[in-house]
């Protein structure tokens, strides 16, 4: 066992411990803010795994997109909808949890069986440092159409998110001139955005 190989093994074990414990924390912790921060830790550990697999570009994309964008977005959503509420009890909730836990354990057993019994083919040696160059070649030759479609998809998602999350605030009814109680705004009835005086 060389030093490099054992270092890799130790890194893998540490990262997988972080990933598994963090994922369990995301799912099981009752405080949603802790869950969000643990989710960031899981994303970072997954980026570390990508580094172990000689994929520096995807690791950087993972850190930028997941930790920098998705996790921050989730934290903002938690801030916007953070209201202490007592969830109404549901009859048979523990049975439901146990049943779904059994289903998940069964799914895991199935996957484990497939992973262990399949004779995985040994491929050529990984190219390592040239991976970023190769990804760029792929993106602009044989994966050009998906690449361009991804940009259209991101534009559509951006417009859709703006349309869905926008609040239509009108403090005064344009027809009758009366004060309008929108009822759509969650906490304060006072509008956060005061609309322009209509001409």
């Amino acid at each position, binding site marked *: *066992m060389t030093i490099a*190989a*054992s270092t*890799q*093994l130790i890194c893998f074990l540490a990262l*997988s411990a972080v990933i*598994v414990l963090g*994922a*369990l924390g*995301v*799912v099981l912790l009752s405080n*949603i803010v802790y869950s969000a921060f643990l*989710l960031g830790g899981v994303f970072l550990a*997954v980026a570390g795994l*990508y580094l*172990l*697999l*000689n*994929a520096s*570009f*995807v690791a950087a*994309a*993972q850190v930028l997109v*997941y930790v920098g*964008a*998705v996790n921050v977005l*989730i934290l*903002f959503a*938690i801030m*916007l*909808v953070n209201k202490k*509420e007592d969830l109404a009890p549901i009859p048979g909730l523990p049975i*439901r949890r146990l049943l*779904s836990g059994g289903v998940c*354990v069964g*799914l*895991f057993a199935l*996957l*484990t069986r497939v*992973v*262990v019994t399949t004779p*995985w083919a040994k*491929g*050529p040696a*990984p*190219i390592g440092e040239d*991976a970023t160059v*190769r*990804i760029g070649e*792929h993106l602009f030759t044989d994966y050009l159409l998906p690449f361009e479609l*991804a940009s259209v*998809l*991101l534009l*559509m*998602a951006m417009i*859709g*998110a703006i349309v*869905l*999350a926008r609040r239509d605030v009108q403090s005064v009814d344009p027809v009758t001139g009366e004060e309008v109680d929108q009822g*759509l705004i969650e906490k304060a009835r006072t509008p956060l955005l005061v609309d322009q005086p209509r001409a």
Partner: protein
Amino acid sequence: MLSELLSGSVPLQAYLLLAAVLFCTGVWGLINSRNAVRVLMSIELMLNAVNINLMAFSSYVDGQLIRGQVFSVFVITVAAAEAAVGLAILLSLYRNRVTVDMERFNLLRW
């Protein structure tokens, strides 16, 4: 697999098993979460498990043409779009229902 593990290198199966654990945790959280934000987090966990699989296969089986890495870049893109739209839907649901309890979202129930 065991001989590889004893020689110190990480086998492909270890990555696949880790991804399986992550995916099953995500499925359990998706089914059992009552907070809608946590449901979105569980979906992110499942997407990450799939990405780990793609990256492991790309490194171990397809080492020269790393197509798995290209696919995981696309998965990351779609996940970002999904998170943005999902959280926007969550915000507008919260404005209509003033709750994030998944059991009380029955707008589409007949």
